[in-house]
């Protein structure tokens, strides 16, 4: 399979700060990859290395088999500007047409604006758009050149639910048409909804890299919450947390656990059972003191 973008042992320092520490990542054609990490983890730096906005301090970055600073390598790439960065005096159609002018076969402006719910705003100056409209415009221009690879940095931050789902649909349609996406997000829900592959970055290193199911399986499948005085030793509990009389238990089989609690006559209340989400896997992976690199391509590794 064609690798559209790749970093090999990429390290990036800002003075004494190591933002990215030996990250190797392949982005094969057709993948929808979600990049997760707490603030300051190195996601944005990684997303700046791929289009050549920054150079790695050491290691290499490849884009479409070449050097990303070579303008020709960026012909099949689509990126999002920051919403605060749109030239305020340019009209919506002008922003789109300016970007479109860089590509051989751009999507016609009316079609693109319709796809991203911006029809009717063509003549508005971008400085006069609402936050959500600006966000949609920045995402739209990433797609105007019919790119093969799109880098989306926090595409739905600040959007309401409806607009977010509309944008997800646009990203899915693009992906179903064969497009490749690398996406960062604050919303784990977004990554769960879209991504096939999840890469968790923390403190500049890859903590986990695998399918959504792989990464989710890093924590036991169910989380049981309850209030009770002291709990005895319970079978099947893989991890637990306690705060006063509140307990959080992780287990593969919540039914068996609840049965135990009942038969042992434990006076619990406020029972809650939930499927462990990506969020919990993410929190477990990026908890302070977590040093293990958990999963690379579905394999547990150290």
């Amino acid at each position: 399979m064609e690798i559209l973008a790749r970093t090999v042992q990429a390290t990036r320092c800002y003075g004494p700060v190591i933002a990215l520490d030996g990250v190797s990542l392949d982005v094969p054609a057709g993948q929808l990859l979600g990049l997760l990490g707490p603030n300051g983890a190195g996601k944005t730096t990684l997303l700046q290395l791929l289009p050549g906005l920054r150079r790695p301090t050491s290691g290499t970055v490849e884009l479409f088999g070449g050097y990303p600073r070579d303008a020709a390598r960026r012909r099949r790439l689509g990126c999002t500007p920051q919403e605060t960065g749109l030239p305020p005096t340019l009209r919506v159609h002008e922003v789109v047409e300016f970007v479109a002018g860089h590509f051989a076969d751009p999507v016609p402006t009316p079609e693109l604006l319709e796809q991203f719910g911006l029809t009717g705003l063509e003549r508005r100056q971008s400085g006069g758009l609402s936050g959500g409209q600006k966000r949609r415009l920045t995402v739209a221009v990433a797609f105007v050149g019919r790119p093969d690879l799109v880098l989306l940095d926090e595409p739905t931050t600040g959007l309401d639910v409806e607009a977010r789902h509309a944008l997800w649909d646009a990203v899915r349609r693009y992906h179903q048409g064969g497009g490749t996406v690398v996406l960062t997000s604050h919303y784990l829900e977004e990554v769960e909804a879209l991504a096939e592959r999840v890469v968790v970055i923390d403190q500049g290193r890859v903590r986990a890299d695998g399918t959504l199911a792989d990464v989710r399986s890093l924590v036991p499948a169910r989380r049981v919450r309850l209030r009770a005085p002291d709990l005895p030793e319970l079978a099947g509990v893989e991890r637990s947390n306690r705060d006063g009389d509140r307990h959080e238990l992780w287990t593969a089989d919540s039914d068996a656990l609840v049965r135990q609690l009942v038969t042992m006559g434990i006076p619990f209340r406020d029972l809650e059972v939930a499927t462990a989400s990506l969020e919990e896997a993410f929190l477990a992976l990026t908890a302070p003191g977590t040093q293990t690199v958990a999963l690379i391509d579905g394999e547990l590794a150290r």
Partner: protein
Amino acid sequence: MSTSTNVRLAGLHARYQFVETVRVPIAVIGTTLFPTLSLLFFIVPQSFAQDPAAATAATAQLAVFAVMSVSLFNYGVGVAEERALPWDGYTRTLPAGPSPRLVGRLLNGLAFVILGLVPLVLLAWLLTAATLPPSRLALTAAALLAAGFPLFAIGIGIGYSMSTKAALAVAQSLLLPLAFGGGLFLPPETFPGWLNSISMWLPTRAGRDLVVTATTGVDLPGPTVFVLGGWTLLAGSLAVWAYRRDEGRRFR
């Protein structure tokens, strides 16, 4: 990238930069109308406005001033402002090298110079005795370009090496000394000797003398070509240094 693509992209960048600037009318008025207003207030009421040689020289001086204010403000402050915006970083992810952006900026400045010169020349022609025979038109344009280059390079040097606030302060504090000292407002013939000897070393003075010679045909003072050449080299190096340093800082 092929040359034709680069030329097309330079045109694209120039066009949108122009539109972006033109939508802020006060920015346009400031740089383009000021030379014309100076002509109206300082030249037209004077008696020498009816003397062809003096009026032509005065108009030529203000033309150099127009070029300088575009260089310092459109390039100097404009570049510094743009560098601060994330949009500038975004344009680097588009499939265009650095040259379309730079050439686009150059063309954009040129457009504003022309916008500044048109009303100036028109009013000078209508209200004063200034004349420019068609045979001198090309020579004058070339002289203006040569006079403008070091100023343009100073602007680029400021824009790529400073923050917006610093660029604005530096541009403003350079504008008046360079304009007065270079004889762009008052003709250097009125200068006392000491001022004249300082003035001879300024890029604006050398540029002014070159353009006055091109328009009126008076003799070019001896050192002009060397002073202008020296400033071109110096300011050009400053611009290249600032541009590279900025690339290295922001896009390492």
